[in-house]
């Protein structure tokens, strides 16, 4: 069954800004009134505040009744291409089905009305899940201990950089080991996070097979090396076959290796960070482990470490004595906290439920299907006019995502990958991902189908690309001026980067509009 994709049109409500919808005197919710006896006993407490700190004029919030607020935000939600409503195969994002039953499990008092500082004996359920999920993550990764404190992949990577720093400091080598290695096709956070942690970051560039050669790694390693932080496969979908040798080289130089498992969806049950020699790793529970991406968060990075680093782990460490779960008390060797409280525990519950619903066979089926789908897409995409597959010298299979190039299409039509992105929306699918920086591949695009789509959906996606490429050759303007059937037409993209025009709030917009 196929969809007439050319007939698609996104919802276009032309919905005003809520600040312009105000209707003086209306109210959306009414807070509980203060008991008369309390008011009588204490009087106007806020009124007795000193003038300098008492608010003089009320904030300019909208005044609206409840149905109008609900309708406004429901309309906005309809103008958003979440993965629940359409195909989203954005590379590096691991979009997959987020099971609804998980939402039903956590959107209840036993998760959402927990205070983070409750005593251990009142949160036995959540501690049990965290404890058991740690065991599961150790099995999945081959690491020895985990924390679920970090709120995203980037924060997990930052945590790994801090753990490596602490490891060297504890051995008196903190001052000497000042350099961190990463690779050009690892996520930008693998370069940014160690830089923020104080490291000079050396980026290893890809060789002719699409990944850094051992020689390049050798040349970059020195007595200053603190460690290596990278993905594998990298964002190109290419697996670095020399990984064990590279890890061994870093170890021999006294460094530690952190495996960014952002691209781990195709690796579940196939190869583990621990068996590859890595000392640290991090998995994105909001990607690989099915928790929803939440419009860019509530994420969680499961940060895993080997024994040598375990003492420095931050966040709550859960212990079990056979009867009760408890959060281990003061841990003097731990690095400084990176995030407050217990982390995004709702995300951990969802990831736990996901693993329980899959078991060992299911986990492997996820990985194999993700890689199979990706390679199936490759067969379709390689036939598209103007599309090339970088690093043809690398004859091995690509993994769960693949970076392609529209360099030829651009040369022949003037249409860029960026133009194609916006045109995809006109056919009712989420646009693809180009590439993170640095954009070493010309006119890049990156596709990661994951394991949640059917053959028809994969075919439809490739067919949409084929149609757009046809348009690029025959009617390039329609691509260049897209989107046409999205929730909004082309915006002034120059204005948003111009200090005279940009406006990040309504008040800024009003001031600048008034000239």
């Amino acid at each position, binding site marked *: 069954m196929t969809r007439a994709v050319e007939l698609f049109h996104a919802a276009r409500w032309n919905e005003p800004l809520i600040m312009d919808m105000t209707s003086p005197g209306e109210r959306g919710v009414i807070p509980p009134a203060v008991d008369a006896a309390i008011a009588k006993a204490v009087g106007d407490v806020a009124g007795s505040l000193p003038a300098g700190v008492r608010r003089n004029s009320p904030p300019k919030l909208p005044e609206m009744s409840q149905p109008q607020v609900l309708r406004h935000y429901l309309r906005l939600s309809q103008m958003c291409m979440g993965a629940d409503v359409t195909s989203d195969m954005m590379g590096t994002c691991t979009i997959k089905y987020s099971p609804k039953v998980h939402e039903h499990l956590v959107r209840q008092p036993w998760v959402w009305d927990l205070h983070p500082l409750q005593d251990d004996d009142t*949160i036995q359920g959540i501690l049990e899940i965290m404890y058991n999920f740690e065991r599961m993550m150790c099995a999945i990764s081959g690491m020895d201990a985990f924390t679920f404190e970090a709120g995203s992949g980037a924060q997990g990577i930052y945590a790994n950089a801090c753990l490596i720093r602490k490891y060297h400091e504890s051995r008196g080598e903190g001052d000497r080991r000042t350099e961190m290695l990463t690779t050009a096709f690892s996520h930008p956070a693998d370069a940014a996070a160690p830089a923020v942690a104080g490291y000079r970051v050396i*980026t290893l560039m890809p060789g002719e097979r699409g990944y850094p050669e051992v020689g390049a790694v050798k040349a970059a390693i020195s007595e200053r090396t603190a460690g290596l932080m990278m993905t594998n496969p990298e964002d190109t979908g290419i697996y670095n076959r020399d990984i064990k040798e590279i890890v061994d080289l870093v170890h021999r130089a006294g460094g530690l290796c952190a495996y960014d498992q952002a691209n781990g969806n195709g690796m579940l049950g196939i190869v583990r960070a621990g068996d590859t020699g890595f000392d640290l790793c991090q998995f994105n529970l909001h990607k690989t482990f099915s928790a929803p991406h939440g419009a860019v968060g509530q994420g969680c990075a499961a940060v895993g470490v080997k024994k040598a680093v375990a003492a420095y782990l931050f966040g709550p460490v859960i212990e079990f004595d056979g009867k009760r779960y408890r959060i281990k008390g003061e841990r003097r060797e731990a690095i400084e906290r990176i995030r407050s409280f217990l982390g995004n525990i709702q995300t951990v519950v969802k990831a736990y439920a996901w693993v329980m619903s899959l078991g060992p066979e299911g986990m492997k089926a996820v990985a194999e299907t993700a890689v199979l789908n990706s390679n199936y897409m490759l067969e379709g995409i390689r036939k598209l006019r103007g599309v090339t597959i970088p690093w043809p010298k690398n004859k091995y299979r690509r993994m769960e995502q693949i970076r392609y190039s529209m360099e030829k299409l651009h040369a022949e039509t003037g249409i860029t990958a960026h133009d194609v992105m916006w045109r995809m929306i006109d056919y009712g699918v989420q646009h693809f991902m180009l590439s993170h920086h640095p954009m070493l591949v010309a006119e890049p695009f990156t596709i990661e189908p994951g394991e949640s789509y059917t053959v028809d959906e994969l075919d439809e996606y490739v067919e949409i690309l084929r149609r757009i490429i046809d348009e690029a050759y025959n009617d390039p303007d329609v691509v260049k001026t897209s989107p046409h059937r999205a929730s909004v037409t082309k915006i002034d993209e120059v204005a948003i980067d111009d200090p005279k025009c940009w406006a990040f709030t309504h008040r800024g917009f009003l001031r600048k509009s008034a000239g």
Partner: protein
Amino acid sequence: MSDGLVHPYIPNAAPAPRRRLMKEVGIRDLAALYDSIPNDIKLKGPLKLPTRIESEHELRKHVESILAKNKSCQDLLNFRGAGCWQHFVPAVCDEINGRGEFLTSYGGFPYSDHGKYQALFEYQSLIGELVGLEVVGTPTYDWGAAADSAVLMACRVTGRDHVLVPATASPERLEQMRGFTKPVATIELVRCDPKTGLMDLADLKAKVSECTGAVYFEQPGYLGIIETQAPEIAKIAKAAGAKTVVGVDPISLGVLESPGDYGADLVVGELQPLGVHMYGGGGVAGFIASRDDEAMVAEHPSFLISISPAADQGQFGFGVSTMERTSYDKRHDSTDYYGTTQWLWGITAAVYLSLIGPRGLAELGEGIMQRSAYAAGRINRIKGVTAPVHASPFFKEFVVNFDRTGKTVAAVNRALKRRGILGGKDLSMEFPTLGQSALYCITEIHGKDEIDALAAALKEVSA
């Protein structure tokens, strides 16, 4: 292994589609997909995981049987806050943040996810109204992360490397800030008056220098105290060429002045009170706001969503401004990092502020202050108990001291728990000079009956 697995979440793992895909790809064994991985590192045998629970019903039963062991703040009468607070959550907030279109969206740009960007622009705008500043970024991980980033933004803009923070700051916040800033800046504490809890301005003047990039304080502070000298602190910072960075609980801004109006250059804070459940701390999300100054905008680590005219007359759209600021573009040159944060709670905060409105926020703040004043008064009448410890106005939290009862906070809280009450956060380790003290939190969810019940229970257990 090529036989396939019928699983509701993985359509192409089923035998028929799997065979079809394998044929197209030209493989007979799925292992061929992994020809790039050397055999010696491949996992031998299955992962050691529990057997899968196939039916949704049984999965649900399994997880529910574990979660049922929790006692939530619906079961307990909660007076604990300290950075994550139990407030009223309007149903519409949960309705909107549960919408699949938002919940499962991610990397889409404004042409595909226009509604998400509009909702976040509205969040930026409404927070801007509360704090009195024109630039607000997309959410950060939490208040602490926002404070981390903001004090270093101030340092970079001023070219300085010294940060002043009041000694009454939350030790956990301070730990988070020290950890983040230590490669590039040092944090020094400013003394606070033990009687009032307010910043000692003489000590501030003595410590602020030509090296000071940021003077950071919170309004209300960790211990609940309203810093009545806020405008003077901003003046002192400004005179020294430092930036004033104020951390706020935004739900207080119906009654407390916009920091932007008393001299704050940067404002950070916590979104969780604005319509987000506590989620054991999973409900937190921070924000960073600043003036619309080009140099300062360049230092924001978060995505900044700008409104922009659209091609259709009179319409508008949104875009992410100046991406070259962010760690996505700067990579190894980054001075901060950004990634997936807590945007869903930013959308929720916009819904909340639209519902509560200006009158609601004022009533809420006034009501909270009346309730907490009443609660402190009731508790202070208990023999041997002092509340509030500090002679200053306070918002929703205040310090209660038990020294003269001879009881520890731990013992009091244990006894309260037996009565179904979650007592205030024990401060005896964090602030030893406060003796056996606890931080109590009162919000709009507490009626007179609940406050009286707390007072009665405290009287019993401290006797």
